[in-house]
């Protein structure tokens, strides 16, 4: 007959299997920190482009409403996005190798699908708004849709992703309330918050 320890072991293995099968645990915290640095670099560049030498909090002479400026900003945003995704893949691939798992498994596939649906919707929505001349909503919409995507995807990975999602949504809503400071909120949401949450995840799970 089995002993009580055996039953406890059974329960522990059930819990372990459920977690590991649902959650993508290879997600690298460090790549979040680096993505945050890319975003800060991108935001600084945009600051020099638009505000310099004035404070980003102050009045400005240039507005992000000329099409060359818009294309310039979009290019910076796309470079930041591509670099971040690339780094995320690369670091997660390394972590997966260390864990003896593949990066492309059931949990990561589900994670991708859950991320892509709100992100693609948000991305297209923002492009449509830009093409119709609604520039002011870009930063809030980026933050809000990104936050929704993270919350949607969080059941397949670490819980910090969920909290990061809530933070992004709150930042997005505040940003929508205070027009003109989009760049600052964008830098906090995509830069500072990625660094903070990425560092937390790195020290909790990557060690």
């Amino acid at each position, binding site marked *: 007959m*089995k002993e*009580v320890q055996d*039953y*406890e072991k*059974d*329960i522990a*293995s*059930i*819990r372990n*299997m*459920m977690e*590991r*099968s*649902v959650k993508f645990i290879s997600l690298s915290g460090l790549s979040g920190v680096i993505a945050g640095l890319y975003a800060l670099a991108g935001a600084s560049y945009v600051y020099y482009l638009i505000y310099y030498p004035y404070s980003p909090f102050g009045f400005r002479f240039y507005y992000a409403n000329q099409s060359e400026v818009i294309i310039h900003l979009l290019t910076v945003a796309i470079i930041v996005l591509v670099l971040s995704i690339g780094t995320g893949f690369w670091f997660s691939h390394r972590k997966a190798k260390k864990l*003896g*798992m*593949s990066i492309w*498994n*059931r*949990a990561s596939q589900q994670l991708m699908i859950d991320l892509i649906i709100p992100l693609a919707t948000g991305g297209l929505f923002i492009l449509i708004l830009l093409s119709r001349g609604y520039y002011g909503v870009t930063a809030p919409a980026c933050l809000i849709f990104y936050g929704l995507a993270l919350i949607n995807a969080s059941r397949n990975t670490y819980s910090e992703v969920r909290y990061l999602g809530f933070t992004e949504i709150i930042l997005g809503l505040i940003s929508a309330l205070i027009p003109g400071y989009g760049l600052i909120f964008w830098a906090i949401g995509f830069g500072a918050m990625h660094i903070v949450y990425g560092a937390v995840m790195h020290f909790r799970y990557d060690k």
Partner: protein
Amino acid sequence: MKNPFEHLDKVLEHSVRLQIMSVLVANESYDFNSLKEILGLTDGSIASHIKALEKEKYISISKSFVGKKPNTRYKATERGRTVFKKHLDALEELIKQQKK
């Protein structure tokens, strides 16, 4: 539960089968390769346990193709979920009783 032993499921007493069921209860469906990766077992050993679970109608199997590669997916059936839940409750009850 008066006698939790009666609620323990004979098929699920085996730890690999219990692990496979845990994965399938937590996920809508799971494919063979992902299952293999998570359990860290050989093809043959997983296949034999899968067969046992299928025979009891705890899981259902669907085969399809992704490109040219065969893709086999497993799902827990209603019956499988019910038995699993009962088994889990019985395990918890046993631990509770023996700790007293």
